[in-house]
């Protein structure tokens, strides 16, 4: 079973707020939620990580409800340069607990002028 589920693609316009939701129904107690961004012809880049409630940095915000079965990456006022693929990962960072690395297909965000 896949650990996470995301929409395949999303469209937006410059200046809008974009929210990308990831479902992780089987999240475990010790799991963190991590989001990456990948531009064409580049390796993925870490955006944000959280465990519960809300996390904010200079790039994005991450909202996690109390049951932690989903999370939402929020990009404020997107620009054309935010066009990329966004991946969410779930895990506890402990190899000894049988951790697995599954990126999935990600969400392809297209920002239009």
């Amino acid at each position: 079973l896949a650990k996470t589920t995301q929409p395949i693609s999303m469209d937006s316009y410059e200046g809008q707020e974009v929210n990308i939701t990831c479902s992780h129904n089987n999240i475990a107690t010790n799991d963190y939620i991590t989001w990456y961004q990948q531009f064409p012809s580049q390796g993925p880049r870490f955006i944000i990580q959280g465990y519960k409630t809300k996390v904010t940095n200079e790039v994005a915000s991450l909202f996690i409800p109390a049951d932690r079965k989903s999370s939402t990456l929020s990009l404020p006022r997107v620009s054309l340069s935010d066009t990329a693929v966004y991946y969410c990962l779930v895990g506890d960072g402990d190899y000894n607990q049988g951790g697995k690395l599954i990126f999935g297909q990600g969400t392809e965000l297209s920002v239009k002028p």
Partner: protein
Amino acid sequence: NAGVTQTPKFRVLKTGQSMTLLCAQDMNHEYMYWYRQDPGMGLRLIHYSVGEGTTAKGEVPDGYNVSRLKKQNFLLGLESAAPSQTSVYFCASSGGFGDGNEQFFGPGTRLTVL
């Protein structure tokens, strides 16, 4: 700091040829990974290492071998290349296991097998 570097950036092979991709990191990370990415698909884990001298299979290990003789280097080998191995290969490293810790990725190697 260079971060994670990959050599070569591009390569074209004929079916049956062999080659080795080199990944190097200067962050003293214990964990290193090799992924492949095919058009329209996400990253799939080939092999990974949890420390110098260790290797483990990922999701798609068949046709590849790896070695981690030095902590800073992780080598991916193709003994007999096949067209199905045409892909972009990314190496990554992290301080803790990558499903819960930030991974740092290299720029990728674009491999074509004819």
